[in-house]
């Protein structure tokens, strides 16, 4: 499995811990399915923890953007936590870094949803 996803609840915030590679195929599909399920279950505050994501391609970036748009359009919030240098670099090059609300510290990120 190229990516592992674990979902946990911290107060009103659903944290998704992602580890591995988010690339076209299994990785991006698994992320898409997990976030789609959360939206269906009406989770409004979602924090995507990418600390353990060591690789993301344009397909993975596409999944992040689609999830962000879908969740925002439904009145929810998708925020990112713990970008590796590689992922941060990609989001900056694609001008998406300022689109997302990005946090380094989980407690701070969780409080920001209040």
């Amino acid at each position, binding site marked *: 499995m190229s990516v592992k996803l674990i979902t946990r609840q911290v107060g009103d915030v659903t944290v998704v811990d992602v580890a591995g590679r988010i*690339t076209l195929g299994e990785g991006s599909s698994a992320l898409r399915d997990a976030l789609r399920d959360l939206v269906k279950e009406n989770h409004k505050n979602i924090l995507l923890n990418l600390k353990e994501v060591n690789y993301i*391609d*344009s*397909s993975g970036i*596409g999944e992040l*953007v689609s999830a962000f748009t879908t969740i925002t359009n439904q009145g929810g919030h998708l925020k990112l936590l713990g970008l590796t240098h590689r992922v941060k670099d990609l989001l900056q090059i*694609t*001008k998406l870094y300022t689109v997302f609300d990005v946090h380094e510290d989980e407690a701070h990120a969780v409080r920001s949803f209040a």
Partner: protein
Amino acid sequence: MGEDLDSQSQTIDLVLDSTLESVDKAERAALDLARESGFGEEDLDRIGMSVRECMVNAVVHGNRYNSHKKVHLSLSRTPERFTVRVADQGEGFNPDELPDPLAGDNLLRHSGRGIFLMKAFMDDLQVRSLGPAGTEVTLVKNVGAEK
């Protein structure tokens, strides 16, 4: 696979199926050869991702996963540059007609960032039509020139 090996230059040619496994295989082969050119980790990351994006375009958009169509991958290194050629058997595209993924209306589109990333990460990108069915993309990274 054919290899023309001396201490300074090397070429590897692979004929790959139109599958995502081929994308992984191409990326690994490119990184192995690029490492021998002495690129640093950041450049290797960027070369690897560019080859991945280029192969995905060939497999998914060019050959459309067609099991009868192949992707030809050529990797070569000289003391001056590292060159990747990816040729598919698809309908082709004009890179100048692709929407700018950084433009306001396109920023939140799901796709359309592959060629942009290749251009950002490599020193040169050329697209050549191979006739009625086929497109070849050439990516070049100069040795010793951080981008």
